């Protein structure tokens, strides 16, 4: 959640320097189109959803890329921008890493599973699936990992899944008005209870 007075901003796309891993990807996968951008650390590749299995397979098996280590797999909810799946890869032999991202539309959030490519992807995909409602097609064991089995009606890390009131209150930045003793933010009267005014919050 961003502060209320300004809308979310996207990072600009900065093309990476020549000779980075993005060029190696271009040479290895000539017919696949992707956008490359230089992140703060790693080079980020943004690929189409349908290319995911081919790109990931090539990333692991191609000796020039040799990205045998799946560091991390996660989801990001961009609200109107759809859901994003992010793969963090690393190669111990070539000593290079890359971030691969793909966007899925909210109403059709399916992507091919990487569990057959990296064994470590199994649990990470299960967690991402339950937290964001993403379907990983071809996953060998698509059951929840951290959440209860019967919690299928909502996905906690989606942006449309609200905080509990008390959590929202904890994160409120209290302005000048709020620093007055006994102030209760609008809408929180019921939580603060009747003693709120006297206790001074």
């Amino acid at each position, binding site marked *: *959640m*961003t*502060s209320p007075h*300004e809308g*979310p*901003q*996207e*990072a*600009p796309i900065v093309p990476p320097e020549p000779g980075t891993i993005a060029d190696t990807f271009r040479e290895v996968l000539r017919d696949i189109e992707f956008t490359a951008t230089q*992140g*703060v*650390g*790693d080079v*980020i590749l943004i690929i189409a959803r349908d290319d995911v299995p081919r790109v990931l397979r090539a990333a692991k098996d191609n000796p020039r890329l040799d990205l*045998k*280590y*799946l*560091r*991390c797999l*996660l989801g*990001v*909810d961009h609200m109107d921008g759809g859901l994003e799946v*992010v793969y*963090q890869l690393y190669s*111990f032999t070539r*000593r290079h890493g890359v*971030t691969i991202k793909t966007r899925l539309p909210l109403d059709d959030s399916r992507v091919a599973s990487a569990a057959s490519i*990296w*064994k*470590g992807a*199994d*649990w*990470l995909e299960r*967690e991402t699936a339950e937290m964001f409602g993403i379907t990983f097609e071809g996953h060998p064991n698509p059951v*929840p*990992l*951290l*959440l*209860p089995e019967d919690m299928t009606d909502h996905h*906690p*890390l989606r942006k449309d899944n609200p*905080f509990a009131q008390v*959590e*929202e209150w*904890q*994160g409120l*930045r209290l302005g000048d008005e709020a620093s007055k003793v006994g102030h209760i933010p609008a809408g929180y009267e019921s939580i603060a209870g009747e003693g709120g005014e006297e206790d001074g919050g």
Partner: protein
Amino acid sequence: MATELDRELETLDINVNVGPQHPATHGVFRMVLTVSGEKVVDAVPHIGYMHRGAEKLSEGVDYRQGLIFQDRTEYLAQFNAEMCYCQAIERLGGIEVPERAEYIRVILAELNRITSHYMFAGAFATDLGVYGTAFTYAFREREYIQAIFEAVTGDRMMYGYFRPGGVVWDVTDDFKDRVRWVCKQTRVGIDDIDRLLTKNEVFLTRSLDIGCISKDDAIDYGLSGPMLRASGLQFDLRRDEPYSIYDRFEFEIPTGTRGDVYDRYLVRMEEMRQSARIVEQAIEQMPDGPIMPEKAPRRLRLPPGEIYMRTENPRGEYGIYLVSKGGEKPYRLKIRSACLSNLTALKQMVVGHYVADAVVILGSVDIVLGEVDR
């Protein structure tokens, strides 16, 4: 004759539930073992009992408030977790950290690695059946370091001492002397545990060639830290992707050859010595000066962007994937848990071993359920 006996003793596979509250599971962890007699034929771990939604909660608070969730996530190596969180924010925001703060952070993080490994040594020996003695020895030594943490931060467990940009207040006046002494004491303490365990008959019988995992499998499962190094890959983020000021220190990276439970123990023991070495170098180099950047903004806003910051924690690669869309709060904060990835290999490690060995193997993973479930 033999075939007749076999027929009479036909066995049935049964499911044995271990946990979620059990002394051998190091927290709230449950696994269902399918056993044929005493041999494990299948293992299904169940996690999530301690899921508190640290990632979601971080989205609701600003960058400084969010630090406390790191302590509560990785509650045996809090400084290391705080360091990763602060580094992610600093790199994304381009915040310069003063020299003195960097040294304080590295010293505390390395001491924290030692306390965490002490905890491992004590608990692991208990799992193995060397009950009591090693545990009390390890905890006595751990307490010396814990006392320093308490003096510096005012808390025994949830330190909340680092800040994006530096540390919250300066260390105590006697910090250098105490750290010098504790480094010396740590070497004595490790030698004590070494003499007690490393060539202990019970210890060796229970840990050699148990729960082996090959180098290729370790990489495929995404193992990291001592688990990966015990399998024979010499990789340490402090050396291979240096962050903070780790490139200024000399230290070795111990690796194993067999990838079994015993190797994981040996790697951790040697790591403690190396951490003491780093602390000794750092305490001599530590300069005076400010501990927070001058003109630190009162409200911390990060430019839009994303970063995957990773640090070498006692249990492996701890990562923070931070997405900012401007503003004072993280848009998304993912915690890459080393333990979670290390646990994925549990099934492969325990299948084929005895039930009693499953407990030992679980102990060798050195799980912290707070980090697994987040």
